[in-house]
């Protein structure tokens, strides 16, 4: 499983922060446990080379890209196979981009290297619109062998639906990007109810702390554009498993704890998610049969600056979940003994204004079950009086093999149907 943020800016974008220079961006991406980022500055790819070099040094995959503004003022991401094609597309875009930047009005457009040194300032009006319409931009991206993704379709300004009312018929987009503003289940219902387009979650980060704020989880062989292309087209077993806000969504906190357990050697996990709006209570419980922790390891696990691994993929671990529970009038309890497994129980006040959203359970289950097809994973989600239960043993008994494309599709269908059967509260939980 790989975690991608397919839309980040650098200090080249006039609206981005100066401290978003190539190495700072890469450091932020590594901190957010991302496997890959796509560098998409407005109408330019001039910082891509430096981000690529910084990424190589840090073991982060970097996909060259650009966020192109169409004549209709629609933002479209071009994700490109290599630097050369990005620069080729860039020269085409520059020819169609009128105006010069006014730094005092729009901001600085800093070309920087991977050592945080300023190499110069881009003089094009990168904040402006090209004279190319959306069809021409999608065609130009495809001619450069790239993927065309409509940016932040859930945003009115510069989103394709906001600007053009609907996605133009016949426009050959490879996917739609959903911003952090819209939870994935809502985005699916609104933008791809019949799976018309694959959906990517991305941060659109303009400053380091936002990198990875939203991300997409992908089932790939390696974090490359070629593999992403296969996942968007659901080819050769590659797939989009889901997405969301790794540092916020409770579903992704659950995923993080479960992943930690599995990485530590657990072979059985039981996850309980209890939503009880009437009792103003939300409980997350994760139990594993892993090696367990002694009191010292337990203390370290709760320390935000401590980790035994350098490759944890999801979330920021136990300290962040503990903080999320406390912020919502609850707490996190951990029981663990060496040789006896561990038990994590986080409680929240359901209606507390600071209670984080549950997020997309489908993503959590897809990543766990598709990523660990041989382990025993049991999930139980109750909401009011309804319950959705899923056990990987039952799936195996029914012949559903998530390592095969059909099995993956069946798994997704099973989860979607199960989650859809739970009665969503009519009142948004964040209302006090």
């Amino acid at each position, binding site marked *: 499983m790989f975690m991608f943020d397919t839309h980040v800016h650098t200090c080249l974008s006039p609206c981005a922060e100066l401290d978003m220079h190539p190495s700072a961006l890469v450091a932020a991406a590594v901190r957010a446990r991302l496997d890959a980022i796509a560098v998409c500055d407005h109408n330019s790819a001039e910082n891509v080379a430096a981000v690529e070099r910084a990424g190589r040094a840090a073991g982060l995959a970097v996909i060259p890209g650009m966020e192109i503004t169409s004549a*209709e003022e629609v933002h479209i991401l071009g994700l490109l196979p290599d630097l050369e094609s990005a620069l080729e597309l860039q020269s085409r875009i520059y020819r169609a981009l009128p105006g010069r930047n006014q730094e005092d009005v729009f901001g600085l457009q800093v070309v920087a290297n991977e050592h945080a040194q300023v190499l110069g300032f881009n003089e094009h009006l990168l904040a402006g619109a090209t004279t190319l*319409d959306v069809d021409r931009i999608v065609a130009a991206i495809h001619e450069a062998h790239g993927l065309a993704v409509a940016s932040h379709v859930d945003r*009115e300004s510069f989103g394709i*639906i*906001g*600007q*053009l*009312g*609907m996605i*133009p018929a016949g426009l050959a987009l490879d996917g739609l990007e959903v911003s952090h503003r819209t939870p994935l289940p809502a985005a699916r219902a609104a933008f791809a109810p019949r799976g018309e387009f694959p959906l990517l979650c991305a941060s659109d980060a303009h400053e380091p702390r936002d990198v990875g704020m939203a991300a997409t989880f992908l089932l790939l062989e390696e974090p490359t554009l070629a593999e992403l292309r296969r996942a968007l087209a659901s080819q050769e077993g590659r797939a989009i498993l889901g997405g969301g806000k790794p540092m916020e969504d409770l579903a992704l906190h659950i995923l993080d704890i479960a992943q930690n357990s599995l990485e530590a050697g657990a072979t059985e996990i039981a996850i309980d998610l209890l939503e009880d709006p009437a009792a103003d209570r939300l409980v997350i419980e994760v139990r594993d049969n892993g090696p367990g922790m002694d009191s010292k390891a337990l203390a370290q696990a709760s320390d935000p600056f401590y980790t035994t691994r350098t490759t944890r993929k999801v979330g920021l671990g136990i300290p962040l979940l503990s903080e999320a529970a406390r912020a919502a009038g609850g707490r996190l309890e951990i029981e663990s003994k060496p040789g006896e497994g561990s038990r994590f129980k986080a409680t929240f006040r359901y209606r507390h204004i600071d209670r984080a959203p549950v997020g997309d359970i489908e993503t959590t289950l897809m990543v766990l079950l598709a990523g660990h097809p041989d382990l025993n994973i049991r999930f139980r989600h109750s909401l009011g009086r309804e319950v959705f239960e899923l056990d990987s043993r039952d799936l195996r008994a029914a012949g559903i093999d998530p390592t095969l494309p059909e099995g993956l599709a069946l798994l997704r269908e099973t989860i979607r149907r199960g989650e859809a059967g739970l009665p969503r509260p009519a009142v948004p939980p964040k209302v006090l």
Partner: protein
Amino acid sequence: MTVAEAAQKIRGSIITAVKAATREVRGGYASDLLSDVMGNSSEGDLWVTMQKHVNIVAVAQLKGLAGIVLVNGRRPDEASLVRAEEEHIPIISTDLPAFDVVGILYGQGVRGRRSA
């Protein structure tokens, strides 16, 4: 006032669906966000915009608008021309900017209509 009369007042030329320009203009709406036009325009409105993407015809048809005014000398895309003819949506192209177009139409008694 008809669409054809409006075209004359704003020094524009009707470039599609001339026959449909006898339609009565019952109000006006100005916006370049098509989602906004879909949400807030009313049937019979003359719509003033910069956008020339083919989706403008779909929006005008969906909302039953009287016609579309393209400002600043903008001409519709080829696809928009074809679709507008097919759907009988008159498109007026004028060299005037949107501010002047709206001012002239307002002076002629065309009003925005907030659908309650």
